[in-house]
């Protein structure tokens, strides 16, 4: 009963944030998209991801690719040669266990005709073992087929480097976080603002002393808190049940949460734009899918972007989720700080400016 009390925009913002947070936690679609789907994907893919159908082997730069050893291995359906990596990239991939081995075949002028140098990594011991036995089979076959001539066509030198295993979960989980943030940011924001507008909730708010920025800020805050709680939950489940690597423990988690916040804010920008251009609630899903599906498929959520043909990769290299996923993986597995992923952050920053410039133009209050 004291009208002289100063009106607090902060309290109004918090009242909206609290209401919105409650509403989100009670909305089945928010919980399903932010938590259930990512976790289901993790459970499903983490369990089938390990069954190696083929073994990735990098081919060293000056490897003799004309030899019969090379062509025989190339014909082997179990062996998948990778030739487009630089020497440095090969070394990193090997140490992470992304590839099982690096092969270098050299032609000799004397006997034996070929020397095969193979580098394995204990980060991918299992697949390395598969390749080793394939190689041994081949070695005996080639040498015995030439039993009339010189006794050995080829000899094998193998070494094993030390590495930290880069498990599929280390790849998958950051992608799932990205998916969770993308769907919550785009779908959630678009639906909420559209329905608040259509049901005149926002209009009724405008009949109170509340400021416009309080409405946007309150909603954003609620979604941010909900998504970060979801992210922490996914990270913890991944870490304790699936062995997700957190190099610096809590610090890594905090860095990931900062990245998650940046990602969510950008994705919410898409949501604001959609809520502005959608005429009614049934037009939200198609428009949202146009934005989320390409990123879901092309931004390295399930498979590495490098698995795509080059023309597809150029599309991947435009999408914001690609850079969020990239930065997340650097931080989580390599132990990078936020200062080490400035390239990714810069591109995300450009997306932020771009999408909010569009959002300011298209957003409708009523």
């Amino acid at each position, binding site marked *: 009963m004291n009208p002289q009390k100063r009106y607090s925009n902060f309290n109004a913002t918090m*009242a*909206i944030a609290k*209401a919105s947070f409650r509403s989100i936690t009670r*909305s089945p679609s928010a919980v399903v998209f932010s938590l259930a789907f990512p976790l289901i994907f993790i459970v499903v893919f983490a369990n089938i991801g390990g069954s190696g159908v083929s073994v990735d082997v990098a081919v060293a730069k000056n490897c003799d690719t004309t030899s019969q050893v090379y062509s025989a291995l190339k014909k082997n359906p179990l062996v998948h040669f990778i030739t487009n990596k630089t020497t440095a990239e090969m070394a990193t991939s090997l140490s992470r266990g992304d590839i099982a081995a690096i092969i270098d075949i050299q032609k000799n002028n004397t006997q034996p005709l070929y020397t095969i140098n193979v580098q394995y990594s204990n980060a991918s011991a299992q697949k390395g073992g598969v390749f080793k036995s394939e190689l041994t089979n081949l070695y005996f076959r080639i040498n015995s087929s030439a039993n009339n001539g010189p006794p050995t066509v080829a000899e094998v030198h193998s070494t094993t480097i030390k590495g930290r295993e880069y498990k599929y979960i280390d790849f998958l989980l950051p992608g799932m976080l990205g998916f969770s943030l993308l769907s919550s940011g785009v779908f959630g924001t678009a639906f909420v603002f559209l329905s608040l507008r259509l049901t005149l909730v926002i*209009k009724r708010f405008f*009949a109170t*002393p509340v400021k416009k920025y309080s409405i946007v800020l309150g909603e954003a805050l609620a979604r941010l808190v909900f998504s970060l709680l979801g992210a922490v939950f996914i990270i913890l489940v991944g870490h304790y049940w699936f062995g997700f690597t957190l190099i610096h423990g809590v610090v890594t988690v905090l860095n990931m949460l900062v990245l998650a916040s940046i990602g969510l804010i950008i994705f919410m920008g898409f949501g604001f734009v959609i809520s502005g251009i959608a005429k009614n609630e049934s037009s939200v899903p198609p428009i949202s899918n146009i934005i989320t599906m390409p990123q879901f498929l092309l931004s390295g959520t399930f498979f590495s972007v490098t698995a795509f043909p080059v023309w597809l990769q150029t599309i991947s290299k435009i999408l914001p989720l690609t850079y969020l996923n990239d930065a997340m993986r650097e931080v989580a597995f390599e132990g990078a700080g936020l200062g080490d992923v400035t390239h990714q952050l810069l591109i995300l920053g450009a997306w932020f400016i771009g999408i909010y410039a569009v959002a300011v133009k298209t957003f409708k209050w009523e």
Partner: protein
Amino acid sequence: MADKPIITVKNLVKNYGDFAAVKGISFEVYEGEIFGLLGPNGAGKTTTLEVIETLRDKTSGEITVDGFDIETGADSIKQIIGVQLQAAGYYPNLNLSELINLFCGLYGINKTPLEMLEKVALTDKAKAKYKDLSGGQKQRFSIATTLINNPRIIFLDEPTTGLDPQARRNLWDLIREIRDAGTTVVITTHYMDEAEELCDRVAFVDGGHIIGIDTPNNFIDKLVEGGFERKKQVKLANLEDVFINMTGKEWREG
């Protein structure tokens, strides 16, 4: 009731593009009265209300609400008015208590949900969702949200549309109580029996113009003086009286 104007509207014009919704209307609402804006759909009632409520910009004209000009004092006006919109929804997935708390935050007022729900006899629905209320309950809840900031004036846009006779009567009682507690009420309606029963003064709006302002009684007396007679002999009761008599006056939930 002294005739002290609390709302003054002078030559209000509102155009939507080429369409003129309100074509220069003027009227005053006196402090402490129930003022009715009557007229057919599309007459400009809602537009007029929304301009006074500071929800829409006017094209031209002058409006003051409790001494504040709507152009310069919109924030002050919002503090002292309560607004019920026609067909407005509420924040999804929240129960009535949580909605009241939300509005308390929006107005910057400390009140308990029960205190507000008590005023509209909805304490037993404190944990219910808005969408699960009956039509009458929804309107009473809407009115509760307009009272949170102890407004000087409340605006009710067609609050009884779609309600059954019992719920309508119940809402009239509530609106009278609010008026008796000192709040000015501005109401729109299509029902003339309601306006006759409830309003202290009414203005007829048609085609964006005001075509008459007076008390319901004066309007009727003038018409009768002019020699008007109903075609059918007026009986001492009508069918609604029969309905209320047969089904009982008490208001049913759901």
